[in-house]
């Protein structure tokens, strides 16, 4: 066994992240660590990687007891990790990023000296970019390859990847798997942390399932099937999805009438959309085709250069605050930069945007009891873990944060729900929970604008699917008539 | 009364014979290295320490709020004589002196009027009059300048004496400027130089700088434009030999030394002491640095005027008699 975890325990102030975790990782295998958000899978890997220190138990690497005091330490011993958020400097070139931290002497340019070592590694990988490209010019998938190259250059024997496919398109995911198999063939050991069942089954040799800080199963992948694995992960049999009401859609709630914007990001170009009561309109599209501007135009954060947005038949002119309290709920596209404040408590995050309601404040003074009650309701409705209103939000896993954001948006019983990437980084149980909630709202007459990069999600939930390409609506499919192929073609402007 | 006096003097004598007296010196913001007035006071106290064997402790204040507690700490620790330099210490000394009636205080540059405080004020106008006479006689252009530091009555007093002295020569124009009206005016050599250059362009060829460190800028300007400057407080002739015509001296060290000596010999008296030309409190500097610059005629004239002032034949107009300070 290459790596052995023996009764490793790690406690945080409010939770026990790893409770006596024991399992082994075999040499030259692809090992999956799966579980819901907050199950402790990232924590155990960060302990191995030297980012955290454990409270008890021991870790053996090549049979020798180890405790790395820092990632640097782990890297020296041949263990490398690719994080969910890439640690790259966009302005620098691919080489410079790879060499970062290993520049060597001040006088001799590292790029010159080390090129010979870098070339073979790079050329054998057959990637679609050059060492001299700047990282900012690369796609997300290519950036991930740079991260992997970085580890290879440091001669890592063990590569840990934390949710590597969360940010990738389907094609990029395929390429990544290809590459990982290739690396395994070269003798590397790969650990992938994920919550996507299909990927585990497709890629891994062995799988460790974690739930609430404990290991609940450890088995060769071929002994498991999707249903069994899902049950192991969420701890119960998976309930069927919420039934969809078959009533026809009602009045138009949101009418986007030929709007254009002039933002520095991807601007909108005479976009037209209509969302009716009781309808989910899915917006498919590669990110960076106007999704952000669409969201911000509706809530009044992005000025329109032409066209108008009507809500319940009236052109909207009010402030963001007026719109968000006047029947529009928002699940913002970017959780950390638009939806939550990680340094605040769960409670304070649970009332962001709702805090001016008479329920939560009287004469400007926040009503603690009401806020706590509201937060506890959200926590139990969406099973947010840890279930503490006073915990600092940043200590929650991304999925749990997202559950809170969704719960907060739906709490006001809105007529229009803008759900932008509502399940990004969320685990199976919670995704199902969020999907059911959106369908329930649809059934009871809410209009829902669903923006997502996951085609499965769009196709499963939407009544109609609009494809956003270069700021305009490139195609519109009714439910059932969209195929993955047709959508994919429209998404790249080939329709 | 006489008996009591005798008793106290015997008591005092026996005390002073037993132990050296303790003297506390509180300097103001300038500190002991200001090459000017605080430095003079410190010099006087150090000399007393050497010659009289007293115990000396000096503190510098970082800001005005620290003056009062420093004075009080000295008093509480049983120091026999507490010295405050500068008019900023007027109010703190008044207050602390009232709290410690048995401690003796020396205040320089202001009049406290308390029964246990000796207040020493200098007749700056008399010294300034003399350097005014020298400036007036030295000037080729018949124009002399005055650069004051902060615009306060004390510096107005310098200016008035200087102006009258220069004008006594006849046909002399005096141009006058102040660096500022806040305490920053003492430490702004750039502005001092600017003002001096402006005065030189108005034909001034002798400039008297009564401006603390800002005066250094005046000296620079004078050196650059080959005119003369006059220093202040301490003897500054050595700073730029050949450019500094003379310095108006204000002997703070004498006042400090005398007070310590008096207290040491138990002859300390409270009340206002004015130190003028007659008792050597003010004067003008003459040394090897400026001797070549002063012609015998100038020296003869200035000594003559000095004698007249000392003999009270000549009364120098005093700004304080127009606007008395607090």
């Amino acid at each position, binding site marked *: 066994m290459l790596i052995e975890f023996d009764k490793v325990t790690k406690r945080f102030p409010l939770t026990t992240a790893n409770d006596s975790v024991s399992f082994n990782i075999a040499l030259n295998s692809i090992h999956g660590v799966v579980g819901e958000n907050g199950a402790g899978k990232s924590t155990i890997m960060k302990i191995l990687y030297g980012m955290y*220190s454990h409270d008890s138990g021991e870790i053996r690497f090549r049979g020798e007891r180890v*405790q790395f*005091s820092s990632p640097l330490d782990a890297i020296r011993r041949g263990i490398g990790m690719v994080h969910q958020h890439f640690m790259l400097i966009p302005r620098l070139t691919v080489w410079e990023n790879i060499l970062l931290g290993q520049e060597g002497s001040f006088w001799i340019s590292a790029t010159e000296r080390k090129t010979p070592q870098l070339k073979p590694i790079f050329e054998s990988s057959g990637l679609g970019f050059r060492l001299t490209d700047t990282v900012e010019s690369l796609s997300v998938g290519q950036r991930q390859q740079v991260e992997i190259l970085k580890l290879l250059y440091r001669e890592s024997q063990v590569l840990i990847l934390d949710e590597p496919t969360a940010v990738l398109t389907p094609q990029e995911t395929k390429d990544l798997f290809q590459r990982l198999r290739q690396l395994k063939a070269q003798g590397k050991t790969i650990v992938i942390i994920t919550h996507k069942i299909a990927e585990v089954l497709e890629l891994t040799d062995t799988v460790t399932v974690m739930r609430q800080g404990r290991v609940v199963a450890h088995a060769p992948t071929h002994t498991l099937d999707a249903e069994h694995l899902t049950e192991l992960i969420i701890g119960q049999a998976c309930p069927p999805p919420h039934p969809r009401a078959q009533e026809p859609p009602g009045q138009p709630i949101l009418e986007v009438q030929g709007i254009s914007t002039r933002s520095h990001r991807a601007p909108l170009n005479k976009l037209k959309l209509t969302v009716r009561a009781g309808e989910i309109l899915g917006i498919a599209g590669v990110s960076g085709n106007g999704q952000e501007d669409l969201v911000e135009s509706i*809530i009044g*954060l992005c000025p329109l250069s032409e066209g108008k947005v009507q809500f319940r038949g009236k052109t909207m002119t009010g*402030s*963001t*605050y*007026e*719109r*968000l*309290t006047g029947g529009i709920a*928002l699940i*913002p596209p970017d959780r950390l*930069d*638009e*939806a*939550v*404040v990680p*340094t*605040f408590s769960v409670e304070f995050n649970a*009332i*962001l*945007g709702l*805090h*001016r309601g008479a329920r*939560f*404040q009287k004469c*400007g*003074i*926040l009503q*603690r009891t009401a806020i706590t009650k509201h937060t506890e309701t959200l926590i139990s409705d969406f099973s947010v873990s840890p279930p503490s209103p006073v915990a600092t939000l940043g200590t929650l896993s991304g999925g749990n944060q997202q559950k809170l954001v969704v719960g907060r948006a739906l709490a006001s019983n809105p007529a229009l729900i803008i759900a932008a990437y509502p399940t990004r980084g969320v685990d199976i149980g919670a995704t199902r929970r969020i999907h059911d909630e959106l369908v329930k709202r649809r059934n009871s007459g809410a209009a829902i604008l669903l923006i997502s990069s996951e085609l499965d999600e769009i196709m499963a939930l939407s009544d109609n699917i609009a494809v956003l390409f270069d700021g305009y609506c490139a195609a519109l499919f009714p439910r059932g008539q969209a195929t993955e192929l047709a959508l994919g073609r429209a998404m790249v402007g080939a329709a | 009364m006489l008996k009591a006096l005798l008793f106290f003097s015997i008591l005092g004598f026996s005390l002073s014979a037993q132990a050296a007296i303790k003297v506390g010196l509180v300097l103001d913001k300038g500190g002991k290295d200001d090459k000017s007035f605080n430095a003079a006071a410190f010099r006087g106290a150090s000399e007393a320490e050497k010659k009289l064997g007293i115990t000396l*402790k000096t*503190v*510098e*204040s*970082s*800001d*005005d*709020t*620290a003056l009062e*507690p*420093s004075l*009080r*700490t000295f008093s*509480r620790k049983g120091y026999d004589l507490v010295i405050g330099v500068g*008019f*900023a210490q*007027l109010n703190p000394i008044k207050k602390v002196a009232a*709290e410690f009636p048995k401690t003796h205080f020396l205040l320089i540059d*202001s009049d406290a009027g308390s029964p246990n405080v000796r207040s020493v004020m200098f007749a700056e106008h008399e010294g300034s009059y003399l350097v005014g006479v020298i400036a007036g006689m030295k000037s080729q252009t018949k124009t002399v300048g005055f650069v004051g530091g902060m615009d*306060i009555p*004390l510096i107005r007093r310098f200016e008035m004496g200087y102006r009258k002295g220069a004008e006594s020569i006849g046909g002399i124009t005096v141009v006058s400027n102040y660096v500022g*009206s*806040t*305490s920053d005016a003492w430490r702004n050599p750039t502005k001092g130089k600017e003002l001096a250059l402006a005065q030189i362009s108005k034909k001034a060829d002798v400039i008297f700088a009564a401006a603390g460190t800002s005066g250094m800028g005046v000296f620079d300007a004078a050196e650059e434009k080959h005119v003369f400057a006059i220093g202040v407080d301490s003897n500054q002739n050595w700073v730029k030999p050949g450019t500094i015509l003379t310095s108006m001296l204000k002997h703070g060290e004498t006042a400090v030394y005398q007070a310590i000596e008096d207290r040491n010999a138990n002859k300390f008296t409270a009340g206002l002491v004015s130190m003028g030309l007659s008792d050597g409190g003010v004067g003008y500097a003459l040394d090897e640095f400026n001797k070549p610059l002063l012609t015998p005629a100038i020296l003869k004239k200035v000594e003559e005027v000095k004698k007249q002032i000392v003999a009270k034949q000549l009364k120098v107009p005093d700004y304080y008699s127009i*606007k*008395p*300070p*607090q």
Partner: protein
Amino acid sequence: MKSLAFSLSFACTLALAVAAAIIWFSGESPLALWEALRASLSSEGLGYTLFYATPFVFTGLSVAVSFHCGLFNIGAEGQLYMGTLAVIATATALPHLPPGLAIPLGILAAGLGGASWGCLAGMLKAWRGSHEVIVTILLNFVAYSIVDYSILYLYRDPVSQSPETLKIPGTFSLNTFDELLSPFSVSLFRSTPANLSLVLGIIVALAVGFFLFRTRWGFELRTVGANARVARFAGMNSALSTILALSLSGGLAGLVGVNEVMGHEHRFIQGFSPGYGFTGVAVALLGRNHPVGVICSALLFGLLHNMSREIEFATTHVSKELSLVIQAIIVLAVATQPFLVSLLKRRSRGRAS
């Protein structure tokens, strides 16, 4: 709170150790430090410590409030002078008010005077996008000029050599602790200028804490400070929060005028502040921007300020600037604490294994 206590004691220990070393290297006994500390905590020293701590409470809170909104108010110095000027203007304009009215009005004036100056910076930041650090620094100089002009030409004491105003009417005076305790013949704080302004400071600190953590406006202000984009997506008006934060910050700094004029000198002495506003940055930093933390660190800085004077009495040639060294080390220690602590931990862990 626990981490705050730790960070305070960590910083102080380090600073005192370095100071002791400096004294020792300059050939004197490090015990002088202890002596200065003891003197600063004697009844009289304590009075001065509290007196100096009072302005630090106000400027520390001032900087802390702006930090909570993600702003760096480096203009507390100018704002405190504007507050002080407002007290003088009010007291001069209304000399016949009864104390019951005069004192609240004086406090209000100090707050509004400082707030007006902070508000100006806030409006420039919120509506014109000017960087608040630049704006507040530059507004300091404008404030100095306005204040100097007012002292010299509007309110000047004509007979005084120093540039200072006339005394304000006695109805505007806040009692010193000494005056309050005198009927009980208690000699604590004897004849020191520590006054009721400190009580005001503590009340204000608690109020600021309540505002920041228990009101909707404080919540919005903190959200804007944490991430302005999140705030906009939550329908908040970040411009208003910016203006509010800087106004409040200025108002808190302005309250220094209450301590200086109403509590102590009863007049405005030009340049009375030895940089209270700038030290406020360090006070806020050490107090982790928490009102209670600010009070603790203000007391510490008050103590240091007083010790700087006492160190001269306790040694023969260690200068008062030593206390600046100590302050600097404290700030550095706080700023680098996470790094130092992890370094120490790693060291001890390395040794254990």
